[in-house]
């Protein structure tokens, strides 16, 4: 039976949530291709969370353990995944910082093309067909992947993890000989461990309308009220030094596809829209009723953010309180 390989990610020995999205995508493709799913896990010791992979559609969990895999190991993992992928019909990555680094290494080693940042996918006549945003989301490109295997990466948050219980049989997979050409020597974590905008299911972003860095506490409070939310920013405020570049959404920042994006005091310049227009639901809060952000927003409130945002946080807290 043909195999679809799902390439999972872990950090510090813990499976990353995006892995379940990758696995769900792989399962869906496998069902259409009449294939089984292998989920590959690279690590230096047992990865916590790997035991849930069966629940999300893995027929087998291939665990590739190597002492050097304590952190992401570009060359070693590329060699391992390429070896595991050689007989696969499709290989699915996440379009994360790691996946964007790893997927082209694997595709090149396999000698096939690669479709990155895919937002829709399926099988037609036994081939993988994908859609991916290009030109900063201003157009959608439909591609057929004729390579064997088809190699693709899925944009985070575009697939909802879905349960599809399979055996999830644990199998040890060998790590082939590899040459370590680069070494990840460490990870600097930010002072406060915050959800990354590229992966958060809800993003609350602020722009120049916030008037100063201190006022971002309004957005942090709104994010806390919503739960599982990250605070993003426009380039104007990142360039002004109010927020870190890692929070920037847009053309030269991150591309986000959360289920809810709330733009506060952001005008909606084309380069900002490039990073967030694929969000499922967009809310805009701006005092200028003609701001371009209202053209892409599903819901808008015209008003002073300093009045609207605290009220919104309070209302959401009240609602969530009722739901508990």
């Amino acid at each position, binding site marked *: 039976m043909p195999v679809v390989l799902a390439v999972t990610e872990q950090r510090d020995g813990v499976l990353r949530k995006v892995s379940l999205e990758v696995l769900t995508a792989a399962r869906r493709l496998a069902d259409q291709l009449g294939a089984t799913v292998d989920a590959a896990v690279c690590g230096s010791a047992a990865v916590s969370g790997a035991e849930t992979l069966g629940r999300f559609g893995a027929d087998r969990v291939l665990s590739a353990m190597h002492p050097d895999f304590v*952190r*992401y190991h*570009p060359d070693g993992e*590329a060699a391992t995944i390429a070896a595991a992928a050689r007989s696969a019909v499709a290989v699915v990555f996440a379009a994360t*910082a790691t996946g*964007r680094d790893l*997927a*082209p*290494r694997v*595709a*090149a080693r396999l000698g*096939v*093309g690669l479709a*990155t940042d895919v937002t829709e996918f399926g099988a037609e006549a036994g081939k993988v*067909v994908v859609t991916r*945003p*290009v*030109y900063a*989301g*201003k*157009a*959608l*490109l*439909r*591609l057929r*992947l004729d390579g064997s295997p088809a190699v693709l990466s899925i944009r985070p948050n575009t697939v909802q993890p879905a349960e599809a219980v399979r055996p999830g049989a644990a199998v040890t997979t060998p790590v082939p000989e590899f*040459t370590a*050409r*680069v*070494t*990840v*020597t460490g*990870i*600097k974590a930010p002072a406060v461990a915050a959800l*990354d905008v*590229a*992966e958060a299911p*809800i993003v609350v972003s602020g722009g120049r309308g916030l008037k100063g860095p201190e006022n971002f506490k309004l957005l942090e409070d709104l994010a806390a009220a919503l739960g599982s939310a990250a605070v993003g920013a426009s380039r104007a405020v990142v360039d002004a030094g109010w927020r870190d*570049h*890692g929070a920037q959404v847009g*053309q030269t920042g991150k591309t986000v596809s959360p*289920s*809810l994006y709330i733009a506060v005091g952001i005008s909606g310049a*084309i380069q900002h829209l*490039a990073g967030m*227009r694929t969000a499922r*639901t*967009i809310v805009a809060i701006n005092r200028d009723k003609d701001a371009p952000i209202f*053209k*892409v*927003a599903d*819901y*808008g*409130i015209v*008003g002073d953010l300093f*009045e*609207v945002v605290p*009220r*919104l946080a309070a209302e959401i807290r009240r*609602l969530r309180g009722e739901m508990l």
Partner: protein
Amino acid sequence: MRIAVCLKRVPDTTTKILIGADGKSIDESGVKFVPNPYDEYALEEALKLKEAAGSGETVVYCLGGDAAQETIRTALAMGFDRGVLLQAAPTADGFEVAKALAADLKDGGFDLILFGKLAVDDYNHQVGVMVAELLERPCITAVSHLVVAGTAVTAEREIEGGIETVTASLPAVLSCEKGLNTPRLPSLKGIMAAKKKPLELKPVSLGAGSVTVLGLALPPERKPGQIVGEGPDAVPALVRLLREDAGVI
């Protein structure tokens, strides 16, 4: 220090995109083209490294149509020594582009080959890494901070919720991210000098590849949104819509 930069000619990001008659590419009439913004960080870094080394050569490579000569001239005006245009139409299959670039870069004796993190037209995020794999060179992607000391390379790259430090040694391949530097603007003198710098034209043919374009389309219009109301009094209605209609909270 010998450094090559791969530079792509792309539509300006503010350009309105229209679909061409073939339904598979954009209508290029009236589109303004610019050097890929991420590649400008690569260009600047190459010039800085050569200046710091005190000697060497900077070469800009572009794979594209004849109009890309103009893009190469921009790099020459910034201070690059020479340019190479691999004449071919870039395809959707980044691996084919990578193979053509790698074939020419292979024997260039470069200590460093720099790329942009991604091309803002195709968003492929792949050509630099693939070139590195084909040349069997170390590769660090999305570099936002770089130190080269002798042959030791130390780079930082942003990952979700942190910054990774990665080390390698020359010769190496890097892809450049915003934050690495502030690209210089060509000076008038540079623009004049660029006209006399060597620009080699080399026809290449790309393989058919394994990625077939089925179609290019404009994204579906978002269904028209609504202004829920004005000021804080509109908040309860917004919350209700988010919960009941959109189901997102």
